[in-house]
């Protein structure tokens, strides 16, 4: 594995990103899973892919441990943070605009040491709450997938960052 220094996830911070895995879509696969993740504070999924036809792209964050997880994601393309709370694992729509080519650059951080989070729901109403989070959970795998369309070209890379 090679160490690569990329733009930091947080302004002013220096994070060294290590390339953990690469996939090169070629037309038969609609789901990519990167497993065996451990030992890093953050993970980063970078992709530029072609799809057989227009579709949405999703990512699922899987982790060890208890019932509720909190994940913080930052898109380095849109410079926005989002917090996702879910039971067991988190499923995230990375790009709601259906298109035949899509690029993503997301940093995923396990916020399990945080005991509260706020969020905005899909109807646009803002509310907040306190989540009881599992303090021992850790990200174990990332799954990157479409709504049914095959990935036809491009590159998907996962990095670990400390």
């Amino acid at each position, binding site marked *: 594995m090679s160490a690569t220094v990329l733009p930091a996830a947080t302004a002013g911070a220096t994070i060294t990103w290590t390339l*953990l*895995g690469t*996939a090169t879509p070629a037309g*038969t*696969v*609609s*789901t*990519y*899973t*990167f*497993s*065996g*993740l451990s030992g890093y504070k953050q993970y980063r999924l970078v992709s530029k892919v072609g799809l057989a036809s227009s579709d*949405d792209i*999703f990512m699922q964050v899987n982790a060890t441990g208890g019932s509720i997880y909190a994940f913080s*994601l930052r898109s380095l393309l849109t410079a926005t943070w*989002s917090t*996702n*709370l*879910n039971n067991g694992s988190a*499923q*995230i*729509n*990375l790009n*709601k605009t259906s298109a035949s080519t899509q690029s993503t650059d997301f940093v995923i951080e396990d916020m399990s040491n945080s005991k509260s989070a706020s*969020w*905005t*729901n*899909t109807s646009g109403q803002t509310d907040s*709450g306190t989540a009881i989070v599992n303090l021992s959970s850790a990200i174990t795998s990332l799954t990157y*997938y479409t*709504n*049914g369309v*095959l990935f036809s070209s491009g590159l998907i890379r*996962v990095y670990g960052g400390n």
Partner: protein
Amino acid sequence: MSRPKIHEFDVTTQIGVDREMTDEEYENFSAPKSESANDK
């Protein structure tokens, strides 16, 4: 149309394999997905 495949890459072993979806995976995969990064 044949069932889409899943590519599983283990970052520890650096081995990646393509496999067919199980029936359960295919049912879940085909289900509507509406959650976003801002969903709770």
